[in-house]
């Protein structure tokens, strides 16, 4: 599976799943899947340390979260020990439930982290750059320039450093970095002028967008709409209103960006090639997402909503829930096909 769209779909799907459940079993299954998938992808890129590093990170995160939560939250029935109540904020019972709750948080954070880590592994920088909406074309071009220049800047910095050391620069104080930074800055900026000249000579010019004000109003309006929808959701307003506000906001933003993007008169040379695995992956993930959301809204998956409070109990399991967790590893099967 190679295309950005397919992977983004996978990302969104898994993200929705992870964020909508607090059931530690499900999350652990997903985490395991991600570790397997990530390791496989990393090995393909000849990175054999990936598993080690990320497992370490995982454990740290879970540990940190567990400790923090247990220190700050004091509800729960299974008290392990008690800190003097006089201590500010952390004084009180340290309960098993709060430990578990913290651990679950850690699991969620780690899963999200791994999710994005895998995205970084599977997509090339270019693909990520091309995801920038067309409405932001000048910024995208600037990013491209920065990415293209980056390696030569590193190299040049090395050369300058060596040249100045040969000249006798002791390289001890912060001031000693001036003879390295300044030539780097000056030479690079002079290159920038040359680059912009070359771009101009080849027909590139930044286009002034008409109707920026209108677009800005659109974006602000859309943002407010979504924001207010969320706040209202927190206050349990009826679903109909929420739905309308969310969709309205989303549509306005989308339309604004599309309209603004169309103003740019240039074409794109690169087009992502969709292979069989991309198609399969995209379809599969869409079906998964739709199925999941419908089951969720019809309350067919109560096992998702687990809480250790007030009394610790073993989390409930449903076959469907397990199925959804396990299927997050789907791209792995596709990659054997690649």
């Amino acid at each position, binding site marked *: 599976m190679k295309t950005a769209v397919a992977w983004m779909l996978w990302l969104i799907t898994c993200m929705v799943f992870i964020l909508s459940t607090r059931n530690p079993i499900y999350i652990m299954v997903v985490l395991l899947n991600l570790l397997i998938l990530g390791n496989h992808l990393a090995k393909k890129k000849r990175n054999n340390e990936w598993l080690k590093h990320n497992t370490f990170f995982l454990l740290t995160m879970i540990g940190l979260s567990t400790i923090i939560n247990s220190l700050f939250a004091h509800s729960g029935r299974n008290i392990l020990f008690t800190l003097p109540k006089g201590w500010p904020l952390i004084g009180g019972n340290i309960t098993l439930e709060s430990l578990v709750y913290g651990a679950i948080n850690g699991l969620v954070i780690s899963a999200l982290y791994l999710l994005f880590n895998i995205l970084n592994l599977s997509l090339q920088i*270019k693909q990520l750059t091309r995801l920038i909406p067309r409405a932001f074309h000048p910024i995208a*071009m600037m990013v*491209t*320039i920065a*990415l*293209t220049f980056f*390696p*030569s800047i590193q190299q*040049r910095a090395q*050369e*300058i450093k*060596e*040249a*100045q*050391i*040969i*000249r*006798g*620069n*002791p390289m001890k104080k912060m001031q000693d970095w*001036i*003879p390295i930074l*300044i*030539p780097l800055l*000056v*030479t690079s900026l002079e*290159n920038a002028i*040359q*680059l*912009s*000249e*070359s*771009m*101009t*000579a*080849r*027909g*590139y*010019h930044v286009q002034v967008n008409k109707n920026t004000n209108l677009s800005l109003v659109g974006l602000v309006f859309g943002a407010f709409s979504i924001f207010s929808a969320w706040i209202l959701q927190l206050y349990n307003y009826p679903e109909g209103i929420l739905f309308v506000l969310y969709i309205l906001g989303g549509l306005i933003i989308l339309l604004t960006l599309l309209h603004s993007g169309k103003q740019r*008169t*240039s*074409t*794109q*040379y*690169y*087009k992502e090639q969709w292979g069989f695995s991309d198609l399969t992956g995209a379809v599969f993930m869409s079906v998964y997402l739709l199925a999941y959301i419908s089951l969720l809204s019809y309350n067919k998956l109560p096992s998702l909503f687990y809480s250790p409070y007030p009394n610790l109990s073993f989390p409930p399991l449903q076959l469907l829930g397990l199925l959804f967790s396990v299927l997050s590893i789907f791209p792995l099967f596709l990659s054997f096909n690649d």
Partner: protein
Amino acid sequence: MIKISSLSFTYPQSTTAVFNDLNLEIQPGTMTLLAGASGSGKSTFLRCLNGLVPHFSGGIISGKINVFGSEPIKEGPEHMASRVGFVFQDPESQFVFDIVEDEIAFPLENMAVPRREMHQRVDEIIHEMQLTNIFRKNTRDISGGEKQKVVIASALVCQPQVLILDEPTSQLDPVAANEIIKYIVKLKSQLNLTVLIAEHRLERLLPYIDNILYLTQDQKMVYGHPQKVLPIMDQVPPIIDIAKGLDVFPLPLSAEDFPDEKKRFQPVEKEHPHDENKDSLDPFLDVNNLSVNLSDQKILHNISMQVNKGEILIIMGPNGAGKTTLLRALMGLIPSNGSRHFMGDDMTKMTLTQIIQHIAYLPQNPNDLLFADTILDELKTTLKNHNKSLSPETISAFLKHFGLADFQHRYPRELSGGERQRTAIAAITVHNPKIIFLDEPTRGMDYKAKETLSDLFHEWCRQDKSVLLVTHDVEFAANIADRVAIIEHGKVKFYGSPKRAFQCYPAYQSQTAKLFPNTGWIIPEDIVLTT
């Protein structure tokens, strides 16, 4: 065709015009060489033809320019992109993308060419220009010559009628440079282009050009056939100098054109002061069996050479032979085996701080060194680094050697390329080291600047200091070398007198030597003296 009427231009913030009232017609399908000293306005002129001047540069322009029906002054560079392809000097600072294919497609994207057509045209040009083995590669991973080809392809993908190149070979080694020139000539006839090319090393282009456009220092211009223009130019390649001196007309544009009768001279063996291998008993720098390994690869094998007091040693060789590695190994920057001695002391036991007291190193890009506000500050920095200090009078006298005494308080980056290089050299030698290493100092320099540099070296040698210089420039080397070492594949292929080096090895033959084989003459001055 290109028609220019009454063209005048002044840069913003400048009081003198770059050129005044230029009138010119360039016929389609011709190749025109732009010649003239640095600063005479060649680059400015070229940029007028696609509108970069004045749209990109600012300034005040008057007159009319018509390039195959378009008017760059009116339309601006964005619209001229499909008429005029422009190639600049440094390929690396022209790359927007990191993949060759994307870079070539860039102009088409800007002109909103539909995707299918874009792919077609890019494929076409990749095949025409024989880039099929690199078009998927990263723009940083290809050679200098290939980089320049990519730039040319990107300029030509819009199918312009005019191709302009502003010193395209300055950053290339001689092999790549010659290849690019032949390439351009081929493209010109293949695609029926009108080509304008600015270049310092005129001898590379003389055989192929139809006309020369010569810009003089006093804003005048001469345009015409090489036979008409060459005689009135100050700075000409050695072969033309020789021809003028020997009264050979019409002027030969390449060694083959040189008429045979004129070549039949009595070969008078000229005494070169450094004919014999003067391996003296106490050399400044003594290198024996130096080897360098980097990640299990032998980069240098058994290099032995000497640099004596007051001597200039030139190191030559193809790209990748290990010349820069040699310099760095000699400085002790990278580990090496074998012995290095400076004035009898074992360098392997010296720290870098100690070594740099005696040896100065000018990197390939002297701008890398300059960071201070004034030339004086640059010198003071080096002095401070070495815990030395000099009186203002001493410093002034020192700067006088470089012709920079009047610029003491100027900002180095505002000076010309040659002046900046000399500033860098002054900055690294102000603490009076005995030897200076230079890595390719003559890139992109015109003849006058090279002369000034040679004078500088000769002055040093008079002060009993030595020079170790890596260069591709055979003519420059022939002028100043006392000893020559040729390195190929990390081994010393030749080490000995310049006479033998520049006569006997075809890749390193100077023009004089090519014309007069078996005479021992390597620079025009040799001939003039003995006939």
